């Protein structure tokens, strides 16, 4: 079976799972699940095959593939293993690991003992067990603000949403107002048709519950929803060295690398538990040792690299190890990451995090850790990987055309995964409208979805009203939803032949990847250029 036959993705699996016209899982729940005490094996026949009494909806059959599913392009297991925290534990031995116990302060021990209530005691117990499991030395106090990836209000997340609701009812709250990933749908501008809306309201039936939880735990209004919380209009960009507990692979990757903050790659739920205690177990990417690079990546392309492609190459090579990347400093004037160039790192980093599980990279002369410590960040026995023109072309050659009708024309363009910055919105507005003017056209040949936070959209309207008006007339739609989630909708690939400049979106969906200059031509003509 081919990988990514229909879709694959860390975000995509839950997203698609939410969009099902099925009886609610909650309706079928049997509350008395077995506990460990009851869990004595029956020796029942497990070797035989079973079907169960219910039928898996046909559209869900292809949803099993996901990011880091352990399979190669040929569908065979790769043998690659990872902790997905961004910290390899490949050489850990049981005898050594089981002795490990974190040291707690008196205050932390008091919380664990229940002095501040039953709920906080449970949260502390979870954090301590989780920290011990991954070799944390202690808990550290969090600063800045959290970022949560709990954005899918699907019925199968009900148990976790209920846990968070119980925390909110107990009066617990994040230590600081926090940002949240974008909602998985937009019924105003994207899925504004009867069929999609029906699926959304059935599939995301727990969305209200989830949003209500976020409102009580400390998330601001939905204008702040974005995966790119670090954009200046949103403002969640803690100072270098700040300990935070972020979730969302691209945000963690950008934050650790470009901002120099310290967070592990948290899974859904763990981010908010840590936010409610204001503490996180310190291990992996939160330590000096855990931020050292195992790979020296030498970018030696003859011209500016395709950032998404080199990110894909790095992710595939490093999996969850940390790369130290050279050859990119010249693309950042004065070695500075600014509002006008951060999208380069955003594109590369999110590709490393989706084609692998990279939670931190260093760019020589550019990112904070690299500017401070240089090549001292490399471990002694590091490996080297060179990305030149040939290697970049080889990576592009692995990007399959996954459209069911491979030779048909595209039907929509998806730009902004992770969410577009202000610079990108304006850049794309000018690129497309100027190309249309040159071609003597008023409208883009296909709709263009620009994924961006509302706060960025509003700034663009205020500062470039005429351009935004022209973009709207041309068929360019700004939306604050998650684009990858849209690509995971039931029947998406049958209805939409999408094109994108996001290597992350390509990695998780059937969308085809093209560099910016080709994408502009496609948007203007509605055709894939020959040989592209």
């Amino acid at each position, binding site marked *: 079976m081919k990988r990514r036959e229909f879709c694959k993705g860390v975000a995509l699996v839950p997203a698609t799972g939410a969009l099902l016209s099925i009886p609610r899982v909650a309706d079928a729940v049997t*509350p008395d699940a077995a506990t460990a005490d009851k869990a004595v094996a029956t020796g*029942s026949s497990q070797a035989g095959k079973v079907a169960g009494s219910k039928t898996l909806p046909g559209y869900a059959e292809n949803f099993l593939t996901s990011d880091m599913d352990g399979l190669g392009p040929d569908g065979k297991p790769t043998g690659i293993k990872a902790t997905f925290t961004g910290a390899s534990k490949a050489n850990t031995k049981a005898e050594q690991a089981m002795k490990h116990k974190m040291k707690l302060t008196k205050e932390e021990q008091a919380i664990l003992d229940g002095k501040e209530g039953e709920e906080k005691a449970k949260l502390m117990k979870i954090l301590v067990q989780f920290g011990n499991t991954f070799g944390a030395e202690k808990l550290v106090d969090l600063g800045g603000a959290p970022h949560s990836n709990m954005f*899918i209000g699907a019925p199968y997340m009900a148990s976790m949403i209920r846990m968070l609701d119980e925390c909110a009812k107990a009066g617990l709250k994040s230590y600081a107002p926090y940002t949240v990933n974008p909602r998985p749908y937009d019924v105003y501008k994207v899925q504004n048709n009867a069929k999609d809306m029906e699926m959304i309201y059935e599939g995301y039936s727990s969305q209200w519950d989830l949003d209500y939880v976020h409102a009580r735990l400390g998330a601001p209004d939905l204008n702040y929803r974005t995966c790119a919380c670090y954009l200046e209009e949103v403002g969640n960009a803690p100072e270098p060295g700040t300990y935070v507990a972020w979730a969302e692979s691209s945000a963690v990757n950008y934050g650790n690398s470009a901002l120099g903050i310290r967070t592990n790659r948290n899974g859904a739920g763990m981010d908010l538990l840590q936010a409610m205690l204001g503490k996180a177990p310190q291990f992996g990417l939160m330590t000096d040792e855990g931020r050292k690079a195992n790979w020296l990546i030498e970018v030696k392309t003859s011209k500016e690299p395709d950032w998404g492609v080199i990110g894909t190459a790095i992710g595939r090579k490093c999996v969850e190890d940390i790369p130290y990347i050279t050859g990119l400093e010249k693309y950042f004037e004065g070695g500075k990451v600014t509002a006008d160039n951060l999208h380069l790192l955003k594109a590369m980093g999110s590709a490393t995090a989706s084609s692998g599980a990279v939670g931190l990279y260093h760019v020589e002369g550019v990112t904070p850790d690299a500017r401070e410590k240089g090549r001292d960040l490399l471990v002694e026995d590091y490996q080297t990987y060179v990305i030149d023109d040939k290697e970049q072309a080889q990576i592009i050659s692995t990007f399959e055309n996954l459209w069911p009708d491979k030779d048909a024309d595209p039907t929509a363009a998806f730009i902004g995964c992770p969410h577009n910055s202000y610079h990108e919105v304006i850049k794309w507005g000018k690129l497309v409208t100027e190309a249309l003017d040159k071609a003597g056209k008023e409208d883009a040949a296909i709709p263009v979805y620009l994924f961006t936070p509302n706060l960025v959209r509003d700034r663009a309207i205020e500062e470039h009203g005429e351009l935004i008006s022209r973009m709207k007339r041309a068929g360019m739609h700004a939306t604050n939803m998650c684009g990858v989630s849209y690509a995971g909708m039931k029947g998406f690939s049958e209805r939409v032949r999408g094109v994108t400049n996001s290597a992350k979106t390509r990695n998780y969906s059937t969308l085809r990847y093209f560099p910016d200059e080709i994408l502009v031509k496609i948007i203007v003509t509605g055709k894939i250029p020959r040989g592209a």
Partner: protein
Amino acid sequence: MAKKKFKGRPVLSGKLEGKALVSKQPFNLTGSYLKNMFAGETEAAPCTDNTNKDLHEKDLKGAIICTPQTVGSTMGAGTVMMCSELGVQPQAWLFSSHIDSISAGGLIMDDVWNGKRVVTIDLLGDEFLEAVKTGDPIAIHEDGTVEVG
């Protein structure tokens, strides 16, 4: 067959006996429980991962699953918790490698918050997975020792 002993780390300790269900490749957490997650199946947990030749269509409910680790969606912790709520969770996870953060988060949250424990042992080593076969008798001890045979 002669008993073989393997020493692992009890992430969530427990004592139980049963029979092994082995996946040589990493276990796709959400991808294996599609029928439970999406169709609300509660009588069984037929493995829906058709790339997993070892487990496809076999019943995961109440099993002692032996595998290198779990992989897949970062929302997998939600799958772990929902499996317990549906009553289709395995009896035990036996990982040859270090546990990953997806299953660790879900299993620990479910154990502490909901009082629903699935015995979990990791770091059993590659030799464990080389030795154990589906259907082999398994005995798990509180200290993380696993006996096969």
